[in-house]
């Protein structure tokens, strides 16, 4: 018997609205991670942005995880489930059987038994990651994995849009609306 499918169209609509209606990346990431935790019945979820200068995955939104786990140390993209950086989804059904973790002891202490790590990509480049943490050994259905990959792509688009909007806002603050309008109308 295959794994149970948990992301149906109702859940997908709720999650999509959380992405479309949030007014900041922080709020979007928080709502999205909360909805995924609730929909999948898992322990926690984090959304990361990749810092190209340090190679660190920096948390932009998270839910369900304790402060002590979140502050365990920098999440280095080359040490923590490194295949995510190659743009492939990684399903660790049982963390006991995996050597891909950067912080295995802290993961165990947090009560995490399974992790799904999905690349957040834009134009074929990894710009972040979506990670889901389960308290039990986890067999994710192929269809749920597919849905999560689509969500990861939407996160990539939202990150790109937010960065663009942020840049425009910064230009507006420096130049003023008049200068910006003249710049755009050229």
């Amino acid at each position: 018997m295959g794994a149970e499918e948990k992301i149906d169209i109702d859940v997908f609509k709720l999650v999509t609205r959380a992405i479309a209606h949030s007014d900041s990346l922080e709020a979007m990431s928080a709502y999205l991670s909360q909805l995924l935790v609730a929909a999948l019945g898992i322990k926690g979820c984090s959304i990361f942005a990749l810092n190209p200068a340090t190679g660190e995955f920096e948390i932009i939104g998270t839910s369900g995880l304790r402060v002590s786990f979140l502050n365990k140390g920098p999440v280095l993209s080359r040490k923590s489930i490194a295949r995510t950086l190659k743009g492939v989804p990684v399903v660790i059904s049982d963390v006991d059987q995996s050597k891909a973790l950067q912080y295995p002891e802290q993961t165990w202490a947090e009560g995490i038994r399974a992790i799904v790590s999905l690349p957040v990509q834009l134009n074929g480049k990894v710009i972040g990651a979506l990670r889901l943490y389960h308290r039990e050994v986890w067999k994710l259905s192929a269809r749920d994995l597919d849905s999560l990959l689509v969500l990861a792509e939407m996160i990539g688009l939202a990150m790109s849009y937010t960065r663009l909007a942020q840049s425009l806002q910064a230009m507006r603050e420096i130049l003023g609306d008049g200068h910006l309008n003249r710049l755009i109308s050229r």
Partner: protein
Amino acid sequence: MGARKLLLPYNFTDRDRKALEFTADTFAPHGGVEITLFHAYLPLPSVQTHDRQVTERLQSGMGYLQTTISELEADFQSVRDELIDRGFAPAMVRTLFRRRKNTVTDAILDLHQREHFNLIVLSRRPGRMGRFFDSSLHAKLLSVLSDVTICVVS
């Protein structure tokens, strides 16, 4: 002269811890400072769907997340205890653990508008990617506020 009012926003990061230690080291020995330890969190989203079973499943998941918020609030109280252990009088340290409607920056600005703090101690992590996506908290506060001392712990 009354006590100076200090606002310490706290989000449980390593940099927030540095800001807390700076506050304790700098102000606890002298007294005369009333600290407001502030955490603003986003409320859980609505999970109403057309399918009753899906809604119930989501509500059950949200119940779990609500307990994690309660645990965070308990952790927040222990941060207050730590300030008291570091030398502040209990009556001079209060906690505000609040839901917020907008950004943390907006929540801080709203609170400051009502309470008129003399000092705000902020933390900042240099080179953080999040700054590319959301406006920087300390930059926004520095550009908007006047007649208040803002310390940025980096």
